[in-house]
């Protein structure tokens, strides 16, 4: 073998080349490596949303690890003696003390803590937007239903990450959150008190909970998340990406860029952009100033105690749910708190997880799909999504009803009633409106395909009738109706979309290309004014022999 390596024609001659060749003779990586570098990724911005979530998770791992060097997850009582003067001499837990000291007495610690918090908000936001993209384009359909399920599980884990994370500093805000978590656990019928005592190691608040949340936050859930992310990506690579319908795109191919170098460079660029945005937010925009809240005290609370945004919907549902305890025979009670927290959240995530199966049952469509759908082409799903989204967002608004009531000087009770009524009537309204919009958009696509694009050119016919000239998108039949069928891809709606205008000459202060050259090039591509004029003549609204001069300004037969 060695002899062959040395003499093989075409074997590398440079030092690095030789080293790489020898390395592969040991590791046998090139078949896998070449396949990976050659893998084709579709080029569409909405495919980057999941990547943003992935990169924020990376930031969370790095910044979180840094924070663990300083954080002490203990509820031992200490007296604060750090550099933040207003709290000196105050009794507090070691957790809060160390959170303060990592903010004030660690160089750049506050920056890292805020970076971590901002990245967490971005993480969940990116997951949610990614989920919406998958939902509204039908990317969850077979064979990707498994990956949808993994995604929903990861969303729930991300929320748990958030809750266990923001509970750690043990300030007044996070302690209030803990108290509500304790009440929610207690509200579970039959096993509630047992579950509470298992989690808190006794009655609220005990001495264990911060330490337990800490290990769940830094080890347990991140480990599960990492494993699931790996699985999610593995399945994605195996199944290959979906793509929007378009020229040359089929159920059996992927059109786009190869991983190396184009996609890899863009993705690496995105990593740095996400890192940069989080870093800028972490330094410039204050978040959760724990030193202003003070240490947790079960007898104190501040108004407008709101959780982070992604839990806001549960806060809202809890605020607007009516006081309905269910008293059962034998003096047992199902507390009202159980419904808007455990049941609502459970039902929402169960529905979300099962949606691919539900849709498969309702539509009977069990085939594999790799081409995406435009939301308008699946009005029922789009409308259902809008309905769910309205429900979620309205609960989120209700979660801030005290702030809205305060800022806009509205009665708090009126806000609560608005929340109660809105959550029942707004989702169906959203359904109907979305459904109609989808149908309208569909019809407009069909209309343009049939009658052509409105050019804005009004023409007077010899006998005096005025018509608007329409530009057909393709061949037309004897009545001037377009023959192109709708293919699930965007239909051009303006002349510019089909080359009615020339592209601008490049250059900011002065042109950096030769205008005449561009004009020629554009003409060759059939763009630009002159080219458009040539074409327009063929598609004016002139009546053809025997045909009606105009039926609502429809395009007629081409002249040549």
């Amino acid at each position, binding site marked *: *073998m060695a002899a062959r390596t040395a003499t093989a*024609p075409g074997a590398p001659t440079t030092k690095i080349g030789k080293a790489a060749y020898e390395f592969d003779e040991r590791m046998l990586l090139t078949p896998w490596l*070449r396949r990976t570098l050659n*893998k*084709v990724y579709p080029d569409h911005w909405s495919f980057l949303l999941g990547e943003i979530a992935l990169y924020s998770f990376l930031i969370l791992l790095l910044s979180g690890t840094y924070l663990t060097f300083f954080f002490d997850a203990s509820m031992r009582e200490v007296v604060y003696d750090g550099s*933040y*003067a207003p709290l000196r001499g105050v009794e507090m837990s070691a957790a809060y003390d160390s959170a303060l000291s990592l903010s*004030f007495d660690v160089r750049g610690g*506050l*920056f890292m803590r805020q970076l971590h918090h901002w990245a967490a908000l971005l993480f969940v936001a990116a997951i949610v937007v990614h989920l919406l993209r998958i939902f509204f384009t039908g990317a969850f359909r077979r*064979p990707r239903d498994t990956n949808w399920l993994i995604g929903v599980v990861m969303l729930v884990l991300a929320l748990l990450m958030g809750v266990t994370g923001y509970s750690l500093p043990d300030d007044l805000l996070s302690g209030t959150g803990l*108290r509500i978590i*304790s*009440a929610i656990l*207690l509200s579970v019928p039959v*096993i509630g*008190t*047992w579950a*509470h*005592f*298992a989690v808190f190691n006794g*009655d*609220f608040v005990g001495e264990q909970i911060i330490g337990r949340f800490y290990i769940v936050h830094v080890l347990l859930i991140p480990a599960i998340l990492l494993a699931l992310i790996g699985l999610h990506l593995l399945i994605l690579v195996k199944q*290959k990406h979906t793509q929007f319908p378009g020229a040359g795109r089929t*159920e059996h*191919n*992927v059109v786009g860029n190869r991983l190396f*170098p*184009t996609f890899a*460079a*863009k993705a*690496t*660029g995105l990593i*740095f*952009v*996400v890192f*940069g945005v989080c*870093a*800028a937010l972490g*330094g*410039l925009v204050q978040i959760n100033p724990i030193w202003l809240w003070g240490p947790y005290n*079960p*007898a104190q609370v501040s108004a*407008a105690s709101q959780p982070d945004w992604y839990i806001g919907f549960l*806060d809202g549902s*809890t*605020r607007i749910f009516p*006081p*309905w*305890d269910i008293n059962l025979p034998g*003096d*047992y*009670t199902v*507390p*009202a*708190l159980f419904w808007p927290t455990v049941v609502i959240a459970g039902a929402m995530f169960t529905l979300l997880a099962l949606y691919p199966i539900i849709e498969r049952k309702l539509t009977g469509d069990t085939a594999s799909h790799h081409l995406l759908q435009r939301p308008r082409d699946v009005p029922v799903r789009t409308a259902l999504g809008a309905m769910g989204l309205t429900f979620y967002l309205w609960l989120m608004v209700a979660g801030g009803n*005290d702030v809205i009531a305060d800022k806009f000087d509205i009665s708090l009770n009126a806000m*609560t009633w608005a929340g109660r009524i809105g959550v029942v009537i707004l989702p169906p309204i959203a359904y109907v409106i979305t459904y109609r919009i989808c149908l309208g958009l569909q019809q407009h696509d069909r209309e343009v395909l049939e009658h052509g694009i409105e050019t804005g050119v009004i023409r007077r016919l010899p006998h005096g009738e005025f018509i608007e000239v329409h530009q057909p998108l393709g061949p037309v039949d004897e009545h001037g109706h377009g023959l192109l069928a709708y293919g699930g891809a965007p239909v051009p709606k303006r002349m510019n979309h089909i080359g009615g205008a020339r592209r601008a000459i490049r250059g900011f202060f002065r042109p*950096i*290309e030769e205008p005449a050259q561009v004009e020629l090039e554009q003409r060759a591509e059939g763009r630009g004014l002159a080219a458009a004029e040539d074409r327009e003549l063929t598609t004016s609204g002139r009546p053809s022999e025997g045909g009606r001069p105009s039926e609502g300004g429809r395009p007629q037969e081409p002249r040549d």
Partner: protein
Amino acid sequence: MTTRDTRPGSTGGADVPGELYGGPDDDYTPEQLAAMSREDLDRLGAHYDHVEILHVDAGPEPGSPMEKRAIRQVGMVFAAAGLFAFLFVVVYAGSGWFLPDWHWQVTEGGWSALFTPLLGLLMGLSLLCVGVGLVLFTKKLLPHETAVQDKHDGSHFDRVTTGATFVGAFHNSGLARRKLITRSLLLMGGGVGLMLIMPLGGLIKNPNKGNPLGTTNWAEGVRLVRNDGTPIRPGDQQPGSLETVFPAVPGGNRQADAATMLIRLRPEQVEQLQPRVGHGDFAYGEYVAYSKICTHAGCPVSLYEQETSRILCPCHQSQFDVTQGAKPVFGPATRPLPQLPLDVDDEGFFIARSDYIEAVGPTYWNRERI
């Protein structure tokens, strides 16, 4: 074939390399490959990965003004990234050395207040420049290539052959016939699984032992004290005011469920006072004491609007009327705030006559039974 076969492997036992993947190395000799251009080799490899390069828009022409401009842009953005990164290092390491101290002072608006924002600004700008530079480089200087790759829904051949291997092994194990083994395996799996999760039992504690949820530190004769430990006499408070009080026991002011609101009602409120059934004598004159822990989700109810006699919980906006035995009048709470029976001891300080007669705080499954 068994291991004692005299002709193992595809080479029939000869000690020479066998066929590789049955593929490319047989199709192309090193000489053929050496004769191909780099671009052809790239496309050939892509072809073997089911990738076809449809067309390539070459990047800007070398030496053209467009290329020069793009190079200048990308170079400047990368240089800016490095510059901002160095500035970050200067601010981070230089503060407290040749720059002012970074320790934040509440009263100060100078360098220490700028330290964290500057770190964020510089690191953010630096990383953003790296990202933007990479994207600019890709968009303006690299050739734009459109490729298409075949997609397969897997191979029937693979499934059938893999299935045969699995089913064959299962068949040879005889588990379908050897019922005793199957059953003992079930018992073993169940037992071992159960055994492994058993240690979680250490988490379980009995919530009904000693009624921890239904009792607080209040008891007969325990004084009502303020957060600082001072006791309270009738007359210390203005009519219409509210004070948070705690049981006079060690750590009473840190107890999660002992916090109590002592309210001195105004005369007109006293006239309207409608205590709950069985709570008729819990008040002491115009003084009433209710638990501060919300019966909904356990937040401290803190906002007292004395004109309407309402107490508001800031967490979920439950409202309680202090003249009606702290009955919930709006919002998600279902039960009144428990009332503490009041009395005055020999020295004239407020004391509790007993603990709360019902469980304080959020409702739970068997609350009524204890």
